[in-house]
């Protein structure tokens, strides 16, 4: 491994730690504010109750967490393209990291985050402007969940394909 690869991997590990830390912060505030990100699960499994009922809180928190995760990955991506521009001789070796098996698994997670965040963002806008009822909004979320899971599975097969080839 050369120096740039070591720096890239260190930053990737740092990024992952940041994502975990922010996940803890968001989940802690969720507990303080409205009985946790998954009030229904908490009630069933742990006997906890919440004041806010059991609306689709999880989608709000997954939106926030996927946004944070994608945002924290972006500096890495900006830096590796900067290497392409300013130190072109080093770029091919650095870019090879993206083709390794662990990084491909990370990319599948990124695909899930991007799909959920994009589709849920558009869903929120539609629910707002079309003034959809709570019931219809919940149905759009179910449809979205299925679509995102299906597309993530399809994309992951393609992304992970070369690992098993």
């Amino acid at each position: 491994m050369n120096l740039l690869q070591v720096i890239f991997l260190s930053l990737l590990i740092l990024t992952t730690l940041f994502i975990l830390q922010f996940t803890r912060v968001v989940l802690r505030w969720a507990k303080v504010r409205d009985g946790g990100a998954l009030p229904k699960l908490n009630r069933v499994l742990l006997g906890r109750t919440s004041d806010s009922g059991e609306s689709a809180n999880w989608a709000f928190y997954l939106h926030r967490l996927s946004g944070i995760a994608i945002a924290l990955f972006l500096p890495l991506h900006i830096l590796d393209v900067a290497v392409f521009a300013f130190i072109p001789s080093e770029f091919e070796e650095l870019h090879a990291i993206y083709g390794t098996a662990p990084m491909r698994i990370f990319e599948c997670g990124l695909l899930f985050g991007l799909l959920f965040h994009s589709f849920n963002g558009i869903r929120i806008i539609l629910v707002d402007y079309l003034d959809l009822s709570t019931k219809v909004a919940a149905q759009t979320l179910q449809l979205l969940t299925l679509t995102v899971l299906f597309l993530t599975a399809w994309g992951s097969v393609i992304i992970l394909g070369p690992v098993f080839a």
Partner: protein
Amino acid sequence: MNNSQPAFRISRTLSFIVLRITGVALAFLALGHFFLTHIANDVAETGSDFILARWNSLLWIIWDSALLICCAAHVAAGALIIVYDYSEDKAKRSMRSNVILATVSVFLAIGLLTLGYALFTIYGRS
């Protein structure tokens, strides 16, 4: 003593508007970018040659610039809303807002310099 102020005052309303407008754009730009570099092409083949070939076309230069700028705006606005939500007091809120705006500005600058310099090396040597 405790009179720290944010360098720029950005209201929740402005953050909200920026989030929605750039969000709709990013749904196409970011998903399109990921599809091109991970699904339509294998990521192992998106090295220097791939980037050079792509930046020979004005469409992709505009695409990547728009993606970079929209990402920066979306991240800044989203992070500010999270900070407004979770900060216990005004001093922490101001400090965190400043850190976010400074960090996003630095990476936006690196990104724009990268694009500018790469385009200069591709087109500037004719």
